[in-house]
């Protein structure tokens, strides 16, 4: 039996029924990582001791015949921007090359409390800044479907590990599409929850008003299990909401008949590759056939989302990344004569080109004389973009959109053109600016077998409906598969 291709429930059942021990399962995953990951590059650090300690606990429960927790014995991977106590956490940056965090990220702690085995830390763009994973200071990640192509970013390692069966599921972070876009490019499910739904305690901050933590998984049901585990109020993050967490799994099978599905023409305009457009349009037809009402909506400010995002995100990043100064943790330049020289040399020698570019852009946008023209302007347009969604959601329950305008591109194709790379986030940044939930699910393939993904966007705190529509579509595929 191939244990590495199982879903969360099937993995947990296999351990519960003692078809395999959690310890043996962890070893199988580590063997697979040892064999396949040199070509892919998804893992930066393995946390074998930690995973095996948890596996021993789970095996003891199973041996006593006790009911395992929801993720009992399930091997997962964690994006390297989420801190893990005692396990090296680099955020994909040289500046944190030897950083051993003294505490655990809440989302990671909650997965482990639910029985998950944390296999290791997953590669990503430096400080989650990128759309191709080529900005990792350590090594690029290769798309498991086609090793000459990018896996997307910034959670490229999380998407690739899940797609290549090197983890049952993974945690990623999403500031402008960094969960959904790599999920789309690698052919897995990726969910960005509502702002405030999941605690960010222990997430190394990029842009605090846009950063989210969420799951990448092989099925919508697995994403629902992961979200249910990590969601909910955390006293350590004052931006986490008090709203109770619904039973996302129980909601999955409710019928979708009569739901109103919004289609925004702004998301199907120029720049959308036909290889993406066609499968997404086919999904809309499929949902209509399932009894959903298809309603045209308008999100008129969509074309302003990228410029708005790249001001807000870089301004916040320039402030957040000021903490990396070589004093309390991380890399420090040597041979310096003064404190100010130490700051400059430390940051110069250990930040990559994209991180420097964003710090520069953000610092410029916040600097005297430019604050009103750039930062304040962008904050105002953020209001307009959010109002677009509020109006659309007064008419519909969810909105369908492409995730990425193109399938996975070749490694190296866009590295010299930052603006072209930014424009690849066109369909995803809006959900971060407005704080609404969005999922990317696989919806087809190109002729070259490259995965295509599409998004389902929902109302604030309505992940349940987003997941339900995603699950209905996914189930309809499996049903037609069996004919």
């Amino acid at each position, binding site marked *: 039996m191939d244990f590495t291709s199982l879903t969360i429930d099937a993995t947990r059942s296999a351990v519960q029924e003692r078809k395999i021990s959690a310890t043996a399962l962890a070893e199988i995953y580590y063997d697979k990582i040892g064999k396949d990951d040199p070509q892919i590059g998804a893992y930066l650090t393995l946390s074998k001791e930690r995973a095996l300690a948890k596996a021993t606990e789970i095996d003891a429960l199973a041996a006593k015949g006790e009911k395992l927790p929801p993720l009992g014995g399930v091997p997962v991977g964690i994006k390297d921007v989420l801190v893990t106590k005692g396990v090296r956490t680099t955020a994909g940056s040289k500046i944190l090359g030897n950083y051993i965090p003294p*505490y655990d990220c809440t989302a990671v702690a909650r997965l482990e409390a639910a029985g998950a085995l944390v296999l290791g830390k997953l590669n990503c763009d430096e400080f989650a800044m990128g759309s191709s994973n080529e900005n990792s200071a350590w090594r690029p990640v290769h798309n498991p479907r086609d090793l000459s192509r990018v896996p997307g970013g910034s959670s490229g390692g999380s998407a690739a590990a899940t797609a290549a069966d090197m983890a049952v599921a993974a945690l990623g972070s999403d500031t402008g599409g960094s969960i959904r876009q790599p999920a789309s490019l690698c052919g897995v499910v990726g969910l960005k929850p509502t702002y405030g739904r999941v605690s960010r305690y222990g997430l190394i901050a990029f842009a605090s008003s846009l950063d989210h933590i969420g799951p990448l998984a092989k099925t919508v049901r697995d994403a629902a299990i992961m979200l249910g585990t990590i969601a909910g109020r955390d*006293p350590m993050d*004052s*931006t*986490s909401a008090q709203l109770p967490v619904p039973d996302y799994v129980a909601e999955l099978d409710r019928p979708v008949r009569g739901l109103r599905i919004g289609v925004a023409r702004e998301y199907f305009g120029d720049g959308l590759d036909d290889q993406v457009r066609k499968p997404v349009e086919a999904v809309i037809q499929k949902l209509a056939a399932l009894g959903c009402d298809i309603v045209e909506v308008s999100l008129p400010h969509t074309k302003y989302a990228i410029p708005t995002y790249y001001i807000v995100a870089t301004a916040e990043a320039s402030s957040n990344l000021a903490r990396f100064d070589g*004093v309390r*943790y991380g890399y420090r330049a040597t041979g310096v004569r003064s404190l100010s020289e130490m700051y400059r040399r430390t*940051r110069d020698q250990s930040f990559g080109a994209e991180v420097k570019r964003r710090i520069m852009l953000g610092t410029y946008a916040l600097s005297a004389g430019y604050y009103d023209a750039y930062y304040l302007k962008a904050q105002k*347009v953020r*209001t307009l973009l959010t109002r677009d969604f509020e109006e659309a959601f007064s008419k519909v329950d969810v909105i369908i959109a492409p995730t990425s305008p193109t399938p996975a591109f070749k490694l190296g194709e866009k590295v010299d053109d930052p603006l072209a790379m930014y424009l690849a986030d066109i369909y995803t940044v809006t959900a971060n600016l407005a704080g609404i939930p969005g999922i990317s699910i696989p919806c087809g393939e190109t002729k070259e077998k490259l995965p295509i993904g599409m998004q389902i966007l929902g109302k604030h705190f309505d992940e349940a409906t987003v997941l339900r529509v995603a699950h209905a579509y996914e189930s309809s595929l499996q049903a037609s598969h069996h004919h």
Partner: protein
Amino acid sequence: MKVSEKDVAYVADLANLELTEEERGRMLRDLNSILDHIDTLNELDTATIQPMAQVSDRFGAGNSGQESERSYANRDDVHEGLRKSLPHEVALANAPDSDGVFFVVPKVIER
């Protein structure tokens, strides 16, 4: 060109970055190309629009003293004082240089 070489040097200084000659040239090109695109925001009249700093701004947090379950909550006071902080040696464990009590840095006063 919006950004000049002088601006690049000034902003790098604000951001505690030095940048090599080559990096400065590239930064000049990239910042100008990105800012050109960002200028499309000026097509919009936003004179009467409120800025949005946080998603909670849309949930009415802080308005009329009413607390929604969606808004960000205040933390309860911890009556026995502040939460325990990290032990000294743990807080210093990742420091590039320390004397066991303090973080050690090069001389601060330069002249």
